[in-house]
């Protein structure tokens, strides 16, 4: 990751904040500074990294819980199997599609809704309250609600509504499983994006907007040249947090399509879960986990670097 970029950013910030003498921190001062950080850091390292080490160890063994007594060291053969597993590649692709699809659509909708809410109108508080609710309801419940009450081909409300317009019933969860899952996910995450963007809009200096309006800039131009650049950091944060949470989506896939039909809508977490809790093939599941972890770190570093760079431009 681009430590240099961030270091520069950090040092410029520090310089602005503290006196020059603090640049060369004494040893004692260094530990005084580290002190408050250590409990959180040590806790996180222990709780998250040790199990990962155990996972790596498992990934080098062939162990199936259902066949006790078979526990062998097999080196990298689990990884070789993964490389040849076409389902693994397909579910990886699904992960990308679901994550990006959800985050981008939710962000666009979130921006639109935030802009609509950022103007005074009758009942604004109530409308905002209604709009944030999907983010608060338990995903376990809403997944079932979507698949059973809304998208069911026989008595689902969506098909009933489409029927009013003469559109034939669509079998959402089996014909368009990824779209069905995206509907539930976008519905859940749009309020989150909307809240972030709304926060950005309300932090915007009103005098700049007024000046623009006096200059005769139309609303669209004001939005593009002033509001959007101002919102950029909020949007990036939304995308980052969105990706972090959505890439690990499990509840919706588990409860709405069970990854099906076939493995058409399975993402990596769901596929690994199946290897672990249906196959009880611990070695395979662990190896897949390790591969996903490495891939995620590579992608995440790239994404974070991008975001940090944009901050630097800002400063």
């Amino acid at each position: 990751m681009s430590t240099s970029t961030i270091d520069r950013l950090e040092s410029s910030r520090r310089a602005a904040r503290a006196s020059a003498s603090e640049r060369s921190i004494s040893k004692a001062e260094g530990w005084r500074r580290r002190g408050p950080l250590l409990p959180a850091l040590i806790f996180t390292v222990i709780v998250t990294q040790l199990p990962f080490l155990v996972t790596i160890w498992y990934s080098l063994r062939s162990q199936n819980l259902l066949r006790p007594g078979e526990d062998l060291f097999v080196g990298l053969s689990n990884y070789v199997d993964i490389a040849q597993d076409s389902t693994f590649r397909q579910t990886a692709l699904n992960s990308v599609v679901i994550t990006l699809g959800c985050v981008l659509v939710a962000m666009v909708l979130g921006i639109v809704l935030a802009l609509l809410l950022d103007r005074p109108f009758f009942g604004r508080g109530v409308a905002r309250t209604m709009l944030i609710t999907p983010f608060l309801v338990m995903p376990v419940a809403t997944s079932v609600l979507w698949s059973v009450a809304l998208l069911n081909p026989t008595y689902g409300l969506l098909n009933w509504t489409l029927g009013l317009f003469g559109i034939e019933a669509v079998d959402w969860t089996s014909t368009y499983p990824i779209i069905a899952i995206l509907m539930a996910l976008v519905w859940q995450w749009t309020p989150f994006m909307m809240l972030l963007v709304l926060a950005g809009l309300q932090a915007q200096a009103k005098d700049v907007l007024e000046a623009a309006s006096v200059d005769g800039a139309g609303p669209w131009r004001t939005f593009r040249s002033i509001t959007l650049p101002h919102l950029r950091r909020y949007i990036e944060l939304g995308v980052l947090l969105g990706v972090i949470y959505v890439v690990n989506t499990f509840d919706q896939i588990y409860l709405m399509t069970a990854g099906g039909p076939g493995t058409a809508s399975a993402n990596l977490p769901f596929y690994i879960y199946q290897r672990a809790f249906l196959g009880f093939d611990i070695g395979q599941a662990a190896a897949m986990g390790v591969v996903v972890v490495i891939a995620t770190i590579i992608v995440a570093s790239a994404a974070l670097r991008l975001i940090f760079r944009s901050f630097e431009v800002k400063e």
Partner: protein
Amino acid sequence: MSDVTRAYRRRTTGGVLTTLTWLLALAFFFPVAWMAATAFKQENQAASDPPTWFFTPTLDQFRAVIEGGSGVYVANSAIATGVSTVLVLLLGIPAAYALSIRPVEKVSDVLFFFISTKMLPVVAVIVPIYVVAGQLKVLDNIWTLVVLYTAMNLPIAVWMMRSFFLEVPGEVLEAASVDGAGLMRTLRSVLIPMVAPGIAATALICVIFSWNEFFFALNLTASRAATVPVLIVSTMTSEGLFLARLCAAALLASLPVIIAGWVAQKQLVRGLSMGAIK
């Protein structure tokens, strides 16, 4: 164009936009409203074709959920959510301080480490966790969930609170340090009051994620430590109708968080806008 027609046009556009906003708000809220309505139905009304719009509301489903011994689940969820959120703040506030106001070296590496722990799939490690927890006899123990939820929310909390701290003007802190105030006092009497909305927003987000957490709860608890999402899933059955019962349970289960979110939404917007990202 005269001022009158311009004002008129602005009013009409305003009317159109307001109507659009309301339509979207209703559309987003509709599934929740439908869930609430379904909770007052009988099972065969809940899964009927065409949908049942008018019916005599019944409290049967709520009664069944409450009498079915949901108290334990709620208590467990309250402990897991409450204690883990407090722990996150206790660990996270000093950490955020050490990453912003008087920063350690390699801030970006530490931040990256925190955030990277959030990106890794939990499913990849659930089996080792399960096996180890089983050997340590801490399966079906609510404190296991407390620890896990703390670790789950800590990284995001550190990130969010750090950005709030960065917003605090330097002069204020210098004044405090000139007074000779120690870390705890600076935190308590100067910093925390200034970033209270941010901390409230962080806490609310932690509460939402731990209250709704399903995967750990499903796999690591049985009877004593099971939380509300497990209760919701246990109302499902592969043989028979369950939608109305599930909706009743889901409505009751979501109410605390929904109400908290509704009450605190201004805090949330203010908190997020104060620090959002730095």
